[in-house]
């Protein structure tokens, strides 16, 4: 049952990027964020709950996301996280950096 990918430690900052990306479309609550990351990555990436919430609060503290209480799908009170303006900028910058990095790493791996 345990995914192999789960064992791979996400590089520092990757989780932040994933969270920002997951929030790019619309505000989500915590579980929905992890569910979305899991779905889109086709279960390759599974976010440890133990790191999700600390990460959310770290991002909130940096002012990249903001939290608001709202009602979830099953009509429960839930804390919804939304990208802020600086969070969106951050997402663009980080995504660009990620692409550059992965492209470079891929290039290196292919040619070597």
């Amino acid at each position, binding site marked *: 049952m345990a995914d192999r990918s789960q064992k791979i430690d996400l590089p520092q900052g990757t989780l932040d990027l994933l969270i920002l990306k997951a929030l790019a479309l619309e505000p989500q609550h915590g*579980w929905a964020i*992890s*569910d979305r990351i899991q779905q889109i990555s086709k279960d390759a990436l599974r976010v*440890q709950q*133990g790191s999700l919430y600390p990460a959310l*609060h770290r991002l909130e*503290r*940096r002012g990249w996301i903001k939290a608001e209480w709202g009602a*979830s799908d099953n009509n429960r009170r839930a*804390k919804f996280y939304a990208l802020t303006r600086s969070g969106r900028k951050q997402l663009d910058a980080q995504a660009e950096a990620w692409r550059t990095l992965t492209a470079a790493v891929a290039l290196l791996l292919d040619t070597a």
Partner: protein
Amino acid sequence: MRADLGHRLRALFRRDTVERELDEELRLHLEHEIEKRLAAGMGRDEAIRQAHLALGGFDQIREAHRDARGISFVESVLQDLRYGGRTMRRAPLFAMTAVATIALSTAAIATVLTLAHTLFVQRLPVQRPSELVAVSGTRIRWNPERLAVREAERVRILGPVSYPDYVSFRDRTRTLSGLAAHYPTAPLFVTANGNVKEINGAAVSANFFRLLGLEPVLGRFFHEPEDQVPDRDRVAVISSNLWRTWFAASPDAVGSHLRINSVDFTIVGIAASDFVGTTPVPIEVYIPTMMLRVGYRWCDDALAADCSVLQMIGRLAPGQTVASAAAEMPTLMPASWLHARAGENSGVAVTDVRGMSEDDDEPRLVAMLAAVAFLLLAVCCANLAGLSTAQSAARAGEFAIRLSLGAGARRVVRQVSTEWLMVGAAGGIGGVVLSRLFIGMLAAAFFTVDDEGHPLRYLFGQPPAIAAITIGAALVAALVISVGPALRVARRTGVSDATPRSTAARRIPGAWLLGVQAAAAVAMVSVAALLAAGARTMVTGRNYDATHLAVLRVRPRLLKYPPERAQRFQRDVVQRLAAVPSVESVSMVGVGTVLNGGATAIALPSWTGQQVRARFNEIGPDYFATLQTPLISGREFDAGDVVSSPHVAVVNQTLAARLWPDGQALGATLLVSKTPHRVVGIVEDIRLGSRAALPESWVYTPFWQNPAEIDSRLAIRIAGDPAAMLPALVREVNRVDPDVPISEAITMPIQLEGLMRPARIGAAFVGYTAALAVLLTGIGLFGVLSFAVARRTREIGIRMALGAARARIVRAIVRDGLLVVGSGAVAGIGAAQAATRLVTHLLYGSAAADWLYYVAAAALVVIVGASACIAPARRAAGVEPAVALRSD
């Protein structure tokens, strides 16, 4: 950045809300996980189990979340504080003992610091006091015992100046914006509004009040023209105190009259109560310097160039410093100072105006007290370190659980330190509060009356810095104490792991700390007892007995009585007093106090021009009988020694041995102030100096052979309590002449207590620390032994099961305890001897019996130690083998 700060603050101050929200989020998350699994067709129980597994421990998430919130440090400190509070509530006796110990010992530090601040540092309560400087003449101190003094051995002392000297500095200085003159300790005989009393007054230059920036409560201070013509302007300013007590604070006081030394003055103003003078003797009346002849009777002309009586206080001009003023002043010195004789002003000094100390020995005293206070804090640290070792061993279980639950060792160490810091902070604050009380007691006991019975007023101030230093010292002590237990936690080894070993030192953890405490206690007890005994020696013993002596100082000089009239008065007074029932004998001195006279120059006729200084007094008949000083040979003065009879002298043993080593003193001729006197008696030394002082040479001449005598101090031996007789004695003097001021009516023991102030302060202070040190040693031994017994319950049980007698177990415990305290006490005797040498200058009387004090102090500490052993030993004896062996 603002978002960050807001977030952190919210996390910190709305901690509960934040935590609740997090819990809610996590619960929601868990529900979603469960629903997801239910939707996938999983059974409900399995879904819940799996969801919990996937989510991981709530607590870990919370902890990680707290770290992410970035308030973890502050919050965990708060948590440590809460834990600490809980620990203290759980062991309140231990916490209270620790806090009280630190409070009592830091109170000693705060008290000494406040004393030091008041005596040496504090500025006058006037405007911009840091600009004030004292300008004084400097002179070479007479060395009474030596003929030739090398330049290096000469001690320059500060001295007052004459009025013309003052004017020469005042009119020419550029570094000072103003220079005032004052004579702050003028004994004035004042009559006003039906009151008659000798009170302390001051003659001040008209600019004195303006220079200090003082404002009158009522009326005005002196105008410049009122201080320009000698004897003309009879104006006075009175203190708020006198205004309240003599004039009921009536506004009519201004403009009313006041007789000062039989001269009429008009009150022009009332001084405020916050400034009472530049010395501890509060000033009750101010008169202009031009009226100095009324206030000062020792010179023929108090305003002449040869009468040095005034002190000078100046205010630095903008941009000037003490150094620049000190550089300028010698250039302004009066020409006469350049060829000054010994004992006259020959230089000038500029000093900061700070503190109220008038005694050159006080810095040494306060340094000694400070050393004792810090030693006490060290003893307290050692004590609490020992107790905390026992306590932390008892808490080893608690720490082990916290460590195994995942708390970092660093976190637990920090908790231990936090607990001790809480104790330290509470103790330090307690110490500051307590020191206020101690200062009050110290002030009341030692700083309210001088040795002539006159009121003193020291403004004891404790600036916030002293409170901060005290609390800081308490915190440092707490940290030092926490090092031991913290290290033990960090090593994750509880004392409970240690197996009991055979030697006493190992049986009692921190035995050496207890030994050191016992040694310090013995030293402190010895020193306190020696100081107290020394101060008492000054009242009785040392070749006189002051216990039953009363002293009256009668001063016809204040009324300008001519010598004939004054001497007639003195004769009548002695006759009348001698006739009072329960008066055993009456005598008198003409110079200084009854025991402590002045000095004079003496020589043998065979010497050519040489003279030496000797202590000197002019005494009435029966002086030595009144003091009960034994005569070695010859006679003392009697009614036959008068102006018309041959000049006679009595010398003390030291002088006799010095000048006539072959023992031919009696009948020899001695020049006293160049006048030949025949030595008619030799008396034992009246030793007033401390052990550090050398015996002094004394020469006595008859009071009635000096036709110039006016004032006297009468020594009256009473059968019974001299204090009870004082009113009757005063009445008797008043009957002879109601006008003559009696400026002192005091018992000799009280007067000597005043002189013994440093030794008595030392005795009280060291006595306090000694009592605390002894108590701490007892508590420390009790705590550590109790712990050792508790730890060895099993061992004791086994021994008993194997047939050891209870008495033997008790003996073993008591032996362990006594071995520690006993060896400490023996070491303490050595420490006490060393400490005694450090306070020789405060000790009076023979050192022959010192060893008795050391042994008694050691015995006291051992007895206290033995009593501390009793309860633990009984507990050990009460061990039931069957119960003990089942305990873990």
